[in-house]
């Protein structure tokens, strides 16, 4: 995206490397951030295509497009994995994190630039492996892996004899190690490379959120890697970690998976919290309300997030006391989350609010995330979850927190920093059109799914009873509308690069007070040759 840098670098290492070296051997945090953003866009487009195909299939009962239901299952599986590992994470951590964590804390670059490069290219390899797996023989006479992103055995072991899932395991392992290296990089950078005077308690909230996220990744992803390796050996060399015939237990996989999987949802949402804290503060022209509370609320969410995993498994046959514990622990998470929501509201209270595009996205994030949070409390209660488990209610819930919470925050951050990254201002009308298409589209798509789920429509089934048709049609039209929103998004990005409206250093004015706004737009290739002093 950012292929031209307007401002001349006064540094001695002025010249940027030539194209091949710059983009393929890149060690510059901003270039790697850009690469991550491009990869996230590709992952999101493929994942989005899969979801549109699913909605086409579900727009009426019966099988229209998918002759083999396995193929439909492969689509939902890959939609989930691509959106999580190759869209949200690369953009919100790899892309915006690489771009803005060093800028915000006053660091010249990441701590380990070459490892940064390794992280990105491992992820690119992972994406290739994942996409290849969609075309290899999987199970049930179809191509690809159709066991959903949770990959439970025995469906993922004896249920998928073909090589598709082996490829996918390699892809997930590569993506996992990419994130582990990235997490080590972020933690080291944030601990050791803050500008003089920037104590931890003065550090911008987005940097805080990436720090907490990195710890979550560092602690949870190795467990996923272990579970993936065990699945792999169960499949290939005949171990029986998850095979009851050999003394193993398939439930153990679910415990391992969700020990990773639950922190993973906070991995996606915490950086989103960080971004919208900045956006809300900027466009209310006030410092964020309760800064320390905001920072430690994220730490609390991260810590408690590690001890609630089995609320994804209420129906596996758990003792009622175990359920009671996981229920209570999960409800506790609503407290720090509430602290954050109320602090955002308090930040806006009495502020001089400007409803510019990033602010619209941020407000929509809060509104829709709270809806998803409330349905989350429903699902956290073991009794209600027994009824709603594996229905569309769950699908609606996690799309409200992720595809609206996290993705809206991504768009909020992207529009907020687009001028800083590219040096150009976007067309407000087009960006606003995208916002409204998205806002109406995703609500049309996912709000009816609450009702479908509560009426008992199960997840992961390409067919349904006639009675569910109307709500499914509304949902499908909503998804087409958000797909048009994606097209408008690409249009406004291209338009901005063609028209080249120059962005100033701090185009949002006095509300934007973090360090990146002291630099030019786009920032010099090497910044902070003289470290900024924080008072």
């Amino acid at each position, binding site marked *: 995206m950012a292929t031209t840098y307007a401002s001349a670098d006064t540094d001695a290492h002025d010249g940027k490397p030539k194209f091949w070296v710059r983009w393929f051997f890149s060690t510059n945090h901003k270039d790697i951030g850009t690469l991550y953003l491009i990869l996230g866009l590709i992952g999101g487009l493929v994942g989005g295509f899969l979801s549109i195909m699913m909605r086409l299939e579900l727009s009426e009962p019966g099988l229209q497009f998918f002759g083999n239901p396995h193929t439909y299952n492969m689509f939902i599986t890959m939609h989930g994995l691509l959106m999580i590992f190759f869209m949200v994470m690369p953009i919100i951590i790899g892309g915006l994190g690489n771009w803005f964590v060093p800028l915000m804390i006053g660091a010249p670059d990441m701590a380990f630039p070459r490892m940064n490069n390794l992280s990105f290219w491992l992820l690119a390899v992972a994406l290739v492996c994942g996409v290849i797996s969609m075309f290899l023989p999987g199970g049930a006479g179809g191509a690809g892996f159709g066991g959903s992103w949770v990959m439970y055995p025995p469906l993922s072991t004896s249920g998928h004899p073909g090589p598709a899932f082996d490829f996918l395991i390699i892809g997930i392992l590569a993506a996992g190690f990419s994130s582990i290296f990235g997490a*080590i990089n972020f933690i080291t950078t944030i601990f050791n490379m803050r500008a003089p005077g920037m104590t931890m308690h003065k550090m911008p909230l987005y940097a805080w959120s990436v720090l907490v996220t990195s710890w979550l990744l560092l602690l949870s*992803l190795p467990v996923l890697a272990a579970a993936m390796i065990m699945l792999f050996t169960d499949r290939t060399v005949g171990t029986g970690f998850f095979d009851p015939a050999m003394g*193993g237990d398939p439930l153990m996989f679910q415990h*391992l998976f969700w020990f990773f999987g639950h922190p993973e949802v906070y991995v996606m949402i915490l950086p989103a919290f960080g971004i919208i804290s900045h956006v809300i503060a900027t466009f209310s022209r006030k410092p964020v309300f309760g800064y320390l509370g905001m920072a430690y609320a994220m730490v609390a969410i991260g810590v408690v997030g590690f001890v609630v995993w089995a609320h994804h498994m209420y129906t596996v046959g758990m003792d009622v006391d175990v359920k009671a514990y996981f229920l209570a622990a999960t409800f506790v998470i609503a407290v720090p989350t509430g602290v954050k929501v109320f602090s955002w509201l308090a930040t806006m209270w009495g502020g001089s609010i400007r409803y510019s595009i990033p602010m619209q996205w941020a407000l929509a994030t809060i509104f829709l995330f709270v809806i998803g949070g409330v349905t989350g409390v429903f699902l956290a209660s073991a009794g209600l979850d027994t009824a709603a488990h594996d229905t569309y209610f769950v699908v609606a819930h996690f799309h409200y927190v992720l595809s609206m919470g996290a993705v809206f925050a991504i768009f909020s951050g992207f529009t907020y920093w687009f001028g800083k990254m590219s040096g150009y201002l976007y067309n407000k009308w087009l960006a606003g059109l995208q916002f409204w298409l998205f806002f109406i589209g995703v609500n049309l798509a996912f709000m009816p799914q609450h009702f479908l789920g509560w009426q008992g429509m199960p997840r992961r089934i390409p067919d349904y009873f006639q009675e569910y048709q109307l709500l499914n049609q509304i949902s499908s039209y909503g998804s087409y509308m958000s797909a048009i929103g994606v097209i408008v998004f690409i249009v406004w990005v291209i338009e901005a690069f063609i028209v080249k409206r120059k962005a100033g250093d701090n185009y949002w004015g006095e509300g934007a007070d973090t360090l990146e706004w002291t630099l030019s737009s786009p920032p010099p290739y090497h910044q902070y040759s003289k470290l900024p002093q924080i008072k």
Partner: protein
Amino acid sequence: MLSLSVTALAMLGLGFASKPLYDAFCRVTGFGGTTRVAENISTETLERQIKVRFDANVAGDFGWTFKPDDVAMTVKLGQNALAYYTARNDTDTAIVGTASYNVTPIKAAPYFSKIECFCFTEQRLEPGEQVSMPVLFFVDPEMNNDGRLDEVKTITLSYTFHRVENPSADANTTIQRQAQKKKLEAIELKANTPQTIKTKTPITDVVPVTDATGRKDKQDTQGRG
């Protein structure tokens, strides 16, 4: 960076260590309905009765028929009881199977103790062979002291036979099973016979199986102390 890498490696190790840890955790806590293995027979019997139901499954239909001889029996807490399952190999090749097991309600698992069970070893069935397989168990009288189990009147013991692709050398064969069955019947009879009334019949051969276990005749079961 070193300490962070060590952290990542430690979590990876912990992921693999979860296998033995999880096994141990299930055995200790009865998590997921994992039953206890008792070293000795129960010596104390209470009046409270529990209905024990028996469930049998074959995973992946590899040509065995596997059924409990009786769907249920009523035992007192602490009573040593012997139940039988029958398995038949309907194929024309010898097959080795192994049974996994658990009980529901899950919270009853810590109190369900097996002294001896066909599920502790692999079982080899010759073509067409039909065998009777015993499980000797008792419901721990301690259960009476656990208020959470006050409403439990029925416990279901479930087995699932899986085919063993690479059997170990010590899979139970017909001869071993017969010896084991006699031994268990002896233990069960002895344990449930009041000390004052010595049984007059030799325990190994004459006592009919149904009598010895009291499975068919509830009065007989209750008569034992």
